[in-house]
């Protein structure tokens, strides 16, 4: 049967549906088709019927509407075409599926619709909440079902990078060696960043199964696209045989290729590799070298030599003081290099680095003024880097140095103070910073001394009071609240001179007093009680801190605490709390059951006052407390 002719007629009728059937009468193309159908109609009745229908459509004098005639033609034609559907596929065909190999996929399709469908949806749509579904499914082992495998591979391209990352690092590699040939088949070495994920997944599988793919990586490193090369080169880390080639690649035009080459070289302990890195560290590639060293364990030799290079730069900067005219441009460059270097030294102790930083602090004034005069802040940042490096590994000598610098610049007081806490006795620290009556007097009148003391107090606060979230259960739901805690008494007694407490009370700083509170110092108990009277609001954290200090440090009885709390609650100012801190809830729960009624009276619905005392979450929390206390009855 002439399917092409039928198809042509169908296209023509389709056009008429779109343009409007009124136009059919004058349609030349349709008119041209008619004789061919009439001719075929002599042999095959179906063509005759179609020909008649076409004629009807073309007949303007027909008594039914043009659209009905078109519908009749199309209905008949559509029926005929449906018997003519072509199912065959021409062209070259190759057998489908993976050829037999050692590790082939054992198809598992045992999970039910209900288990699979949410995961399929998460992997084939966009929108919120997908990561959670996918993570949960992976945990439950649902990804073992082979039907999710193609979607997992698709997921390497997921626009939500956390999902793509999960697929790359965990889910796709979990299919193991069996999926490897397939990944390699569909991996395009000339591809872009998307292909990087495939390669990374391949590498993860190979590592897990101790499969040696070095030949593949080195070949990719030589000839693949830029992104792939950069990735493959990193996988060569730790394999000395590639050092000569890696050195070659550090000369590459593409910077991410160079960065990867440095990374791979930094993992080597060979002299060649170190020499190459050192040489490159003199130039603009220093930033890549810093990154290469920062993110992996490197050999001591490399670190030592980089430290020497750093020391040289520092020395050069300091030496410039002696020169007659200062080359500011050169110094600026130097500062940039030193800032890069300083990222490298955050973790590892190194004597050369230590000395260089000491030298910098010794020349504080000169270096500081470089910033001031040239309006570049780099040198100040470098000096802070120096101070914080020294702070963590300091000796008495360093402390002296920091004292000296902080005399000049109060911004260095925190470093000096923290170091002094580490290496001096509590008495010494106190003497140093507060001292006797004379220095206290001085602090009152001297502006700089006052500023320094302010810095000390600001530094102490986070050391004494811990901020953080605490979660607690309200029976049916978990709540999280931001809260402040104080350290255990023993720690305070061991590390802090008790004169600090007296000092804090003199300063009238209730937070510090709570943080430092200990038995055996006159007036603390009274101070705290008075402060609670002054600040009874549960919506402020101060009340909680005071109650904690009284209970945890001074050991007041539960009964005493209950009294204090009731005093605070009944205070008119203590209103409008939106949420209680967990400590307060726990304290409520220690109340005797006879307090239930009194607590109930606090609920918003039981109060006539215009301002609710405890509303929102606080009301809910209170209800929980009441409910629980009732249960204890």
């Amino acid at each position, binding site marked *: 049967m002439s*399917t092409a002719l039928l198809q042509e007629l169908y296209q023509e009728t*389709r056009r008429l*549906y*779109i*343009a*409007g*059937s*009124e*136009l059919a009468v004058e349609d030349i193309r349709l008119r041209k088709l008619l004789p061919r159908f009439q001719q075929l109609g002599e042999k095959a009745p179906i063509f005759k019927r179609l020909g008649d229908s076409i004629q009807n459509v073309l007949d303007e004098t027909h008594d039914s*509407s*043009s*659209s009905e005639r*078109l*519908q009749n033609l*199309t*209905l008949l034609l*559509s*029926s*005929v*075409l*449906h*018997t*003519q*559907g*072509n*199912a*065959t*596929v021409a*062209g*070259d*065909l*190759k*057998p*489908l*599926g*993976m*050829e*037999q190999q050692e590790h082939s*996929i054992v*198809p598992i*399709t045992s999970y*039910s*619709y*209900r*288990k*699979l*469908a*949410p995961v*399929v949806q998460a992997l*084939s749509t966009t929108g919120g909440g997908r990561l959670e579904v996918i993570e949960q499914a992976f945990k439950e082992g649902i990804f073992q079902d*082979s*039907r999710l*495998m*193609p979607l997992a591979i698709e997921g390497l391209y997921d626009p939500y990078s956390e999902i793509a990352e999960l697929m790359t690092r965990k889910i796709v590699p979990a299919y193991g060696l069996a999926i490897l040939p*397939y990944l390699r088949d569909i991996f395009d070495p000339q591809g872009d960043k998307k292909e990087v994920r495939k390669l990374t997944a391949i590498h993860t599988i190979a590592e897990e199964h101790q499969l040696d793919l070095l030949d593949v990586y080195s070949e990719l490193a030589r000839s693949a696209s830029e992104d792939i090369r950069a990735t493959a080169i990193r996988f060569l880390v730790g394999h000395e045989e590639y050092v000569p080639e890696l050195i070659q690649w550090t000369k590459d035009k593409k910077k991410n290729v160079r960065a990867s080459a440095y990374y791979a070289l930094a993992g080597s302990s060979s002299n060649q590799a170190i020499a190459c890195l050192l040489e490159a560290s003199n130039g603009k590639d220093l930033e890549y070298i810093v990154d290469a060293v920062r993110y992996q364990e490197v050999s001591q030799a490399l670190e030592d030599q980089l430290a020497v290079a750093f020391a040289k730069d520092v020395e050069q900067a300091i030496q410039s003081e002696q020169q007659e005219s200062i080359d500011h441009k050169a110094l600026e460059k130097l500062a940039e290099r030193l800032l890069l270097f300083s990222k490298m030294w955050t973790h590892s102790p190194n004597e050369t680095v230590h000395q260089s930083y000491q030298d910098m602090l010794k020349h504080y004034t000169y270096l500081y003024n470089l910033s001031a005069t040239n309006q570049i802040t780099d040198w100040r940042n470098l000096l802070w880097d120096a101070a914080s490096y020294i702070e963590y590994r300091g000796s008495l000598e360093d402390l002296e140095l920091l004292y000296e610098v902080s005399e000049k610049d109060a911004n260095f007081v925190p470093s000096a103070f923290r170091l002094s806490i580490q290496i001096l006795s509590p008495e010494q620290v106190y003497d140093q910073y507060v001292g006797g009556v004379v220095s206290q007097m001085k602090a009152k009148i001297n502006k700089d001394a006052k500023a320094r003391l302010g810095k000390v107090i600001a530094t102490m606060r986070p050391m004494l009071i811990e901020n953080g979230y605490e979660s607690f*259960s309200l*029976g*049916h*739901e*978990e709540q999280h609240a931001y809260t402040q805690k104080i350290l255990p008494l023993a720690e305070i007694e061991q590390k802090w001179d008790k004169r600090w407490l007296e000092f804090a009370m003199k300063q009238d700083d209730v937070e510090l007093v709570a943080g430092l509170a200990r038995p055996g110092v006159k007036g603390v108990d009274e101070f705290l009680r008075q402060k609670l009277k002054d600040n009874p609001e549960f919506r402020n954290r101060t009340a909680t801190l005071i109650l904690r200090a009284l209970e945890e440090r001074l050991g007041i009885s539960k009964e005493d605490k209950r009294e204090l709390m009731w005093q605070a609650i009944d205070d008119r100012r203590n209103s409008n709390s939106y949420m209680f801190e967990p400590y307060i809830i726990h304290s409520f729960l220690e109340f005797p059951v006879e307090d239930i009624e009194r607590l109930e009276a606090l609920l918003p619905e039981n109060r006539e006052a215009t301002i609710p005392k405890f509303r929102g979450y606080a009301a809910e929390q209170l209800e929980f407390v009441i409910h629980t206390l009732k249960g204890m009855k």
Partner: protein
Amino acid sequence: MAIQLTEGYVDGLAPNAAAIKNAKGLIQKNKLVQLHQTEDGTLLFGECAGSGKSNYACSVDFIQPDKEPTSRCSCPSRQFPCKHALALMYAYVAGQTFTTATIPEDIADKRNKIEKREEKAAAIEADPTLKAVPKKKTVNKNALKKKVQAQLEGLDILEKLTLSLIRNGLSTVDATVIKRIQEHVKQMGNYYLTGAQVELRRLAGLLSPKNNPEANYTYAVEQLTLIHALIRKGRAHLQAKLEDPELALDAESTIEEWLGYAWQLSELEQHQRMTEGAELIQLAFTSYDDPGRMEFIDLGYWLELGTHHIRRTLQYRPYKAAKHIREEDTFTEIACPKPLYVYPGDLNPRVRWESLATRAVTEQDVQSIHAQAYTSFAEGLKLIKNQLKNPLADPYPALLLQVSQFYQSEEGQLVMKDSEGQSIGLTDISLPIGTSTGLLPYLPQETLQDVTVLLVFEHQMDTGQLIAQPLSIINGNGIMRLLY
């Protein structure tokens, strides 16, 4: 006696996946505050904290061993089992401690009532004369006649609308025209033409300016010819019915359903569309959204063992009620319906049952599937095309074919061949049942040779191609479901 529960069984009881997740969430958050079981091991009960002050009392009753357990809960959910009851079962599966306690009074009462009802039913079975004779449904013929006339009137209105659309041309369809079509969609309901209503709604969807109508013109033309066929056949059928003094239903063709009739099982029974002793094995399952019907459809493909009949189970879950109807799931046992009701239909008629016995799938069951498949593609395709040429037949017929090997063309098109070397190209059909060809390239070649495949077909008007989508592959290892 201890209650035997597995995680999979509890999963199966859940109305949907969200309920499973919520139930597990309750366990994670320790919301179950009391866990008890009765000494005889027939009842799990406990309390679960909700958002209110008091806890929900929930229970799962296993007193009737041959039936699904009965779940009861004081929560307001209309899902059964609700998340609390599911959580109770998951907690039991997870091995949490259930202390022995006496049965709560209200549950004992409910059990008594059930028992009495069962006794009554047993008595009727023993002595059928006790059965209250169901009142013979008296059909108000006048009312029925009026209804048929209204349907005819509705078809006229529908025809007028579609013909005017075609006269003006689809290219002139704009938001105003769509609004007019939508109004007609509503009207069709008044004329008792819910089937036509669905098809008209589909047309509105295809032509809606939101859905890129140019890309849908081919489907829109198909939809218009379908509506034309529906009007013609519907009209002829209704006129014939008017002349029939009994105004009888046509239980042989699908025309009643096209016009919007919903068969009741008792009517199918009257028309002898019912089989005792049939056993079915599910070959594929899926669930999809049908915006034309405004329903979710749970679709199962089943082979009636010992025959070559591929049956379909169709559960319609209207959008509005979807939350309260349990979404069906993959079925991995042999279903033995008592009895099996078969709707009028084509190659794959819809089936339903009210009660079901199950048994495990045996090796033999799986092997018997191969024998029911067509060995020659030509023969199978003839059958398919024969159905497709009827505009009112199911446009996605399903068939089992024996495949000797799968191939891939250079353009990446998947192809299968029979032993005579005839090929069929594989593509996902336009019905949104999900994609199923993705897995094939990953499979070892030997699992794809000399297998039986369940396929659904579709004729693509624009290309003239007859395409097929594989749903499941049956090989030596069993049924490998490509969908669900």
